[in-house]
């Protein structure tokens, strides 16, 4: 039974070892960035006869005199507004309001009747310059904001967190309105009277409106609600302590405990979580030693110690643990330029893994290192980073924890509490977003950590 679990564990770490590779499986993180926003006006479905779009597809003119309400010159963006973000926004600048200033900015669906002002038809929304009203698919517009004319810059945006549209004039928000449409929306511009001319900015140039500040403000609203939640006392302290214990950072742990005791007031943890802690205390010193050796690249020494303390872990030299250690040794040889030795080591130790599923990708990447004069700059350069050594160290750490005769739940060995909490957080946010039509921001730990201090 133990063997099955240790194989699962090892496979888990094998997958982790390829995290740094750019060729690894689709990243949930990247998914959000993959949505392409609109970049220019769509000349294919615009009401071609009534308006003129410039060659750069970023401005539009109404050259003739309009006759009625069904010859509006309407044009949409070339792609729908991306949804996997907090806000989508674009701006128009009114170069000329022409004879009557009947310009509109708004959002429409695919298949919109391209001869009508946005907002005059169902499932469309438009903020009109001539009367300052907001039209949302009803015959009558609602009082909304000021009128706008030549020289004004007007923006239209979608706030996915509040499910609202908002519009701006010359850098200030003029109003918001509920978004009832769930499907894809296209940023839309319309002109209707003679000589009206409008340019569109989909983000290639800086906006008149401070979008970043607006986004920060909206995020802050959510943050305020979150900060109000109260945590049980010393929870963070406990999570950190558990983390240090789990990964074997013994020296840090001792310092941490000492500081906790001399804190005012002294921090004492509820020993209710003791069962997990006992499991994690196992072989703390040995795990620390092994981690330090691997972090320094001293793989032979690590293998030696493992052989001394836990021979059964390194007994099967086809196991994932051994595999990771051998790969790392190979990497270390390449790192110091001992290429001949690396080749002979590879032949002895790594060759057998070439055919084995699950192992072959990593071993191929390792061997590929030999092909480059500057391997750290190559596509397999990730292998030379510290994070790679970290994966090996974490694998060995988990394997030792598994050896604890008192361990009943292998899940405890696999992940620290902190990791479990962070996974739950990410998965909950993603599921919530999924159930809301996939709109809005998701939680990304990496982004939160690297957003930098304001």
């Amino acid at each position, binding site marked *: 039974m133990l063997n099955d679990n240790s194989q699962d564990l090892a496979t888990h770490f094998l997958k982790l070892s390829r995290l740094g590779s750019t060729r690894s499986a689709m990243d949930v993180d990247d998914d959000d960035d993959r949505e392409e926003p609109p970049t220019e006006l769509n000349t294919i479905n615009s009401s071609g006869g009534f308006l003129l779009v410039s060659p750069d597809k970023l401005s539009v003119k109404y050259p003739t005199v309009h006759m009625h309400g069904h010859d509006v010159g309407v044009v949409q963006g070339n792609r729908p507004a991306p949804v996997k973000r907090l806000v989508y926004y674009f701006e128009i600048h009114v170069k000329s309001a022409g004879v009557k200033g009947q310009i509109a900015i708004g959002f429409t669906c695919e298949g919109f009747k391209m001869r009508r002002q946005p907002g005059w038809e169902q499932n469309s929304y438009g903020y009109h310059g001539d009367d300052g009203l907001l039209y949302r698919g009803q015959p009558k517009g609602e009082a909304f904001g000021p009128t706008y004319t030549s020289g004004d810059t007007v923006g239209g945006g979608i706030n996915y967190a509040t499910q609202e549209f908002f519009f701006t004039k010359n850098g200030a928000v003029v109003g918001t309105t509920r978004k009832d449409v769930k499907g894809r929306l296209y940023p839309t511009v319309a002109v209707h009277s003679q000589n009206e001319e409008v340019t569109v900015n989909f983000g290639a140039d800086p906006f008149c409106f401070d979008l970043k500040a607006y986004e920060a403000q909206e995020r802050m609203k959510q943050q305020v609600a979150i900060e109000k939640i109260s*945590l049980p006392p010393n929870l963070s302290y406990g999570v950190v302590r558990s983390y*240090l214990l789990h990964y074997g950072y013994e*020296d840090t742990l001792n*310092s941490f405990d000492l500081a906790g005791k001399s804190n*005012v007031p002294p921090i004492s943890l509820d020993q209710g979580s003791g069962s997990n802690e006992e499991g994690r205390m196992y072989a703390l010193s040995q795990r620390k030693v092994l981690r330090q050796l691997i972090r320094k690249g001293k793989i032979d020494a690590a293998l030696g110690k493992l052989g001394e303390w836990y021979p059964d872990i390194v007994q099967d030299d086809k196991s994932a643990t051994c595999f990771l250690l051998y790969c790392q040794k190979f990497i270390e040889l390449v790192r110091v330029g001992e290429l001949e030795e690396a080749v002979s080591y590879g032949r002895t130790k790594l060759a057998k893994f070439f055919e084995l599923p699950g192992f072959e990708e990593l071993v191929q990447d390792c061997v590929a290192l030999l092909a480059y004069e500057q391997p750290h700059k190559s596509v397999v350069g990730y292998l030379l980073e510290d994070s790679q050594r*970290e994966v090996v160290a974490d694998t060995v750490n988990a394997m030792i924890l598994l050896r604890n005769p008192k361990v009943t739940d292998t899940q405890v060995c696999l992940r620290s509490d902190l990791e479990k909490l962070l996974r739950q957080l990410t998965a909950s946010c993603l599921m919530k977003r999924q159930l809301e039509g996939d709109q809005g921001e998701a939680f990304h730990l*990496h982004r939160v*950590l690297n957003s930098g201090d*304001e």
Partner: protein
Amino acid sequence: MSLFCIVIRELEEIESMASSKKVITREEWERKLNDVKIRKEDMNKLVMNFLVTEGYVDAAEKFRMESGTEPDIDLATITDRMAVKKAVQCGNVEDAIEKVNDLNPEILDTNPQLFFHLQQQRLIELIRNGKVDEALEFAQEELAPRGEENQSFLEELEKTVALLAFEDFSNCPVGELLDISQRLKTASEVNAAILTSQSHEKDPKLPSLLKMLIWAQNQLDDKAAYPRINDLSTARLEDPAV
């Protein structure tokens, strides 16, 4: 046995449809959990950020050595900051004020409220030690002028001076000012002000993330039944209540 299970599952589904909540099985949820990418170095950064912001200098130093994570603030500045915090926590406010000014004289200059609270704490300590005359002099010379400038300062000053009216502190209405929690509050304020002056966020990121977890689960509860972590201190996944 399996027919029974099928029937139960169907009933669950019908129930969930009635309440329009999506049911997510343990298996499904664990798959989603496994798909999440968490980098070890990000977790290390989170821990380091906690150690540094809360002021665990030695632990931060050891963690840097054991994990290779670089702290996002100069460790030397932490020692100074912690000395100030400790001084306030122990009631040595004069000492704390001197240290803050050594660190950065602008901190107290640009933080009148903080400065007032520190002076107020000094007054509290004088009263606690029975130095009535000194306390009165101090209140009149240092604190009254501040009180004149600001209504809320005046109110707090009056509350503090009221302590002098009582012989038995344990029963007086403003007795909480003598509690250690008051010292801790002031100490926290100083800690935050120093961090801000060093262009560092005054709160560690970890507690916010833990709160976010509680919030996210609460939000998701409206729409789905799924395995939850109810006790964050154990991080144990519990199956959805049927």
